[in-house]
Structures are given as structure tokens and as C-alpha cells.
């Protein structure tokens, strides 16, 4: 049976789920909850998590010297190579197992790599692609806050059009970022022998179920987690979950999975709300809304989202019972 909130609360009433309090992420940041949800699921299913982190808010704010907010085996290497690093850890584990040198051979481990969108969509993409292509049994989780937030909100491949960043500000000439958000899910699904899914903390049961699936999948998994940055999305500190819900209801962040090429939408939305509602709720789009061409730009985004949603439904239908391998 799938895990539920009551069960997790019972399991973790008197212990920390791998990440501890005392970290220095902003009040209301979604990133620690992404880590917490994943690690609680793994431990509740009997796995000992091993955590690797790419440089970014989650890493910097949980490891400010001389403190660490981790109580599971933890490794940080660089910004661009968390997938390679964790693939090395996983390989070392298999080598030790082969030589019969594990202290406790019965123990089940879950190898997690967490990266921000900058560390995943952009600078860490090569390392991630390599690790997934080699087929390491690990779970890569991107907490997607749509920008390089730890260094003060620079544009990344995950930033949506019209969003205010320091490197593509919304001004008189340009409306902020003009390119679409990169579709990392499709890029990762293209590795074929992989389980790929999107998650959101606003749908906790779906989140737990997908982590469980990733843990049981006999190969690499890639999970894209929607992770509002209250600081640079210019939303109030209590709004991470509200904005996440709106992202799903508007089709901005569809919840689905691709298992060896088979698409499945895990949260059906009968009628998508206009994406304008998602945009209007966040201060990072305030300058966009002031421009005379705001409607035009929003309509373009809307059209893209509608098409992507229709395409997803067609893909679900077309790939049913047809795994690529």
C-alpha cells in the first residue's frame, strides 16, 4: 500500500528525516521539503539514504561551516557534477559488495543526487546524462526553482519567459527572458532506459508514490520537483504550496511520468485554468504585466502550455503498453 501522511508522521514523530532543522534556507522555501519528502519515503520503505548535493541553495544553506543539517551519509563535490559523484559512490558500493567487504550486506541503500535547476538543466546536464546513460541505480532529483537563486536570481534554462532575473531584466526593450523553459523531462526520458517523473509537494501522495517507484525501478530515475523560491518569485513566505497547486491547475507543471517510454499523466486536470492566474500571482512577473505587449507574451505562453498538455494526452494514449525496451 502506498505511504500516507499519517504513516510518515508516525515514523518520524521523534526523528529527523535525513535533513535536520537549523538549516539556513529562507523561511518558507520549498527546497527542504522536496528533500524531506524523498528521504522520508526511502527510509519508511527500509532504505538507508546516501545523499549527494550539487552546489546551490539547498547545499549552501544546509552546510554552513561548522554546521551540517544532514544526518545521513552526505557528499558535496562541485556545482556541475553531482550525478557523476553519486554514480561513483554507487559504483564503489557495488565494488565493495562484489569483494564481500560490506559491513552489512543486508542493508538496502538508496543513492540520491539533488541538484538545483542551474546544476541540472544547464551546467550539470552532461554529467547527469552520462550517469543515466551508464545505467547507475540512483535517483536524481532536481528541485526546480527556475533560476540561479543562491547567487541572486540569474536566468537559467529553467526560467520561464517574462520572468524577472538579474541577467535578463524586464525593461523597455526586452520582456525579460524570451526563450521557453527547457523541457528537461523529455530530455531525460530520451535516455530510454530510465524512470522519469514530475512531482510537486502540493501533491504529497503522488510524490511519495513516484519516489517509491523510483526506488524499485531497476535502473536510474530522474525526478523533477517543482520548488517555489519565495525570495525571487516575489511571493509571500507562506505561498509555496498555493503556487504549486496553481502550477498544476494551469498545466504549467503537469504531473506525469515516463517509464521506459510509456507516458502516464498522474494528475488529470479536467479543464486547465488560464496560465495568467499563475503569472499574476507572482511578483517576478510584475514588470512583464506593466508592458504594453504583456497580453501577447502571455498568450504565447498559454498556447505553448495548451499544446504541450494536448501532446501529453496523445503520448499517453499512443505509448500505452508499449515500453521502449
Amino acid at each position: 500500500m502506498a505511504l500516507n501522511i499519517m504513516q510518515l508522521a508516525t515514523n518520524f514523530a521523534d526523528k529527523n528525516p535525513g535533513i535536520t532543522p537549523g538549516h539556513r534556507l529562507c523561511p518558507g522555501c520549498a527546497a527542504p521539503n522536496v528533500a524531506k519528502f524523498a528521504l522520508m519515503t526511502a527510509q519508511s520503505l527500509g532504505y538507508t539514504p546516501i545523499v549527494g548535493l550539487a552546489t546551490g541553495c539547498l547545499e549552501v544553506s544546509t552546510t554552513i561551516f561548522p554546521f551540517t543539517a544532514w544526518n545521513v551519509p552526505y557528499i558535496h563535490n562541485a556545482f556541475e557534477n553531482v550525478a557523476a559523484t553519486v554514480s561513483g559512490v554507487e559504483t564503489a558500493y557495488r565494488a565493495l559488495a562484489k569483494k564481500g567487504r560490506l559491513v552489512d550486506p543486508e542493508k538496502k541503500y538508496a543513492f540520491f543526487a539533488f541538484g538545483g535547476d542551474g546544476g541540472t538543466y544547464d551546467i550539470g546536464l552532461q554529467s547527469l546524462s552520462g550517469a543515466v546513460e551508464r545505467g547507475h541505480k540512483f535517483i536524481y532529483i532536481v528541485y526546480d526553482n527556475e533560476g540561479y537563486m543562491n547567487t541572486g536570481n540569474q536566468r537559467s534554462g529553467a526560467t520561464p519567459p517574462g520572468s524577472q532575473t538579474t541577467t535578463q531584466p524586464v525593461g523597455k526593450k526586452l520582456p525579460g527572458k524570451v526563450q521557453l523553459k527547457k523541457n528537461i523531462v523529455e530530455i531525460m526520458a530520451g535516455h530510454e532506459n530510465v524512470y522519469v517523473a514530475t512531482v510537486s509537494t502540493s501533491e504529497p501522495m503522488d510524490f511519495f508514490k513516484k519516489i517509491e517507484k523510483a526506488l524499485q525501478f531497476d535502473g536510474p530515475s530522474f525526478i523533477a520537483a517543482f520548488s517555489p523560491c519565495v525570495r525571487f518569485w516575489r511571493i509571500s513566505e507562506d505561498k509555496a504550496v498555493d503556487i504549486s497547486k496553481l502550477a498544476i491547475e494551469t498545466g504549467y507543471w503537469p504531473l506525469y511520468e515516463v517509464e521506459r517510454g510509456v507516458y502516464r499523466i498522474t494528475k488529470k486536470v479536467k479543464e486547465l485554468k488560464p496560465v495568467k492566474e499563475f503569472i499574476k500571482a507572482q511578483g517576478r512577473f510584475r514588470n512583464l504585466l506593466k508592458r504594453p505587449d504583456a497580453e501577447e507574451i502571455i498568450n504565447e505562453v498559454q498556447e505553448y502550455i495548451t499544446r504541450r498538455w494536448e501532446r501529453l494526452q496523445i503520448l499517453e494514449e499512443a505509448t500505452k503498453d508499449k515500453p521502449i525496451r
Partner: protein
Amino acid sequence: MAELKNWKELPIGGVIDKPATAKEYQTGTWRVIRPIYQAENCIHCMFCWLYCPDQAVEIEVVDGKPKMKGFNYYYCKGCGLCANVCPKTNDKLPEEKRAIVMKPETEFQE
């Protein structure tokens, strides 16, 4: 609040040789609004516990079921997410009917 060590007391190379030391770090000093728990209105749904980014919601297991106990102000940063996700708290409810009420920290200063 954790006392900072001097260079002679730190491990060579600045290695962190103990896990979970951030728990000594008091993040509650950041708080400008404080969540107040009103147990009589609570249905123990655990949403506040699940969503608190700082694990500042204390719970206990009674007869096999998790129960909300209150807030840990050593860590609570006052983001208000617990109140936002609480099904027994919203702006339309009068304060005395809510399970969580957010109050300015200035009300608690001596």
C-alpha cells in the same frame, strides 16, 4: 545558541566530523510573526507537520496515531506556511476558531 569554536578546537582541515550539528543553530531568531497553536480547534491532520520547512512542528504518537503538540520556537522562522495549509485555519474564521493564529513577534517581547 551554539558557541562557535576557535581554530585550535576545530578538526584539522575544517572537517565536519559529526552529523546534524545544524540542530545547535537557532533559526528562531529570524522570526517576525509567530504561529500560536490552539489545540481545541485542531483535527490532527498533520499538514502543518508535513509542510513546515524547518521541522518546527512538534508531534507525538498517542495510541498509534500522530498528534500535533505545538511549535518549536527554537527553529520556527515564522513563514506562516503551517497556517496556510491548515484546514482549520483561514482568514474568514474568527481567530478563536482557528487551529493556528499568526501573531507579530513584537507582542511577545518583554
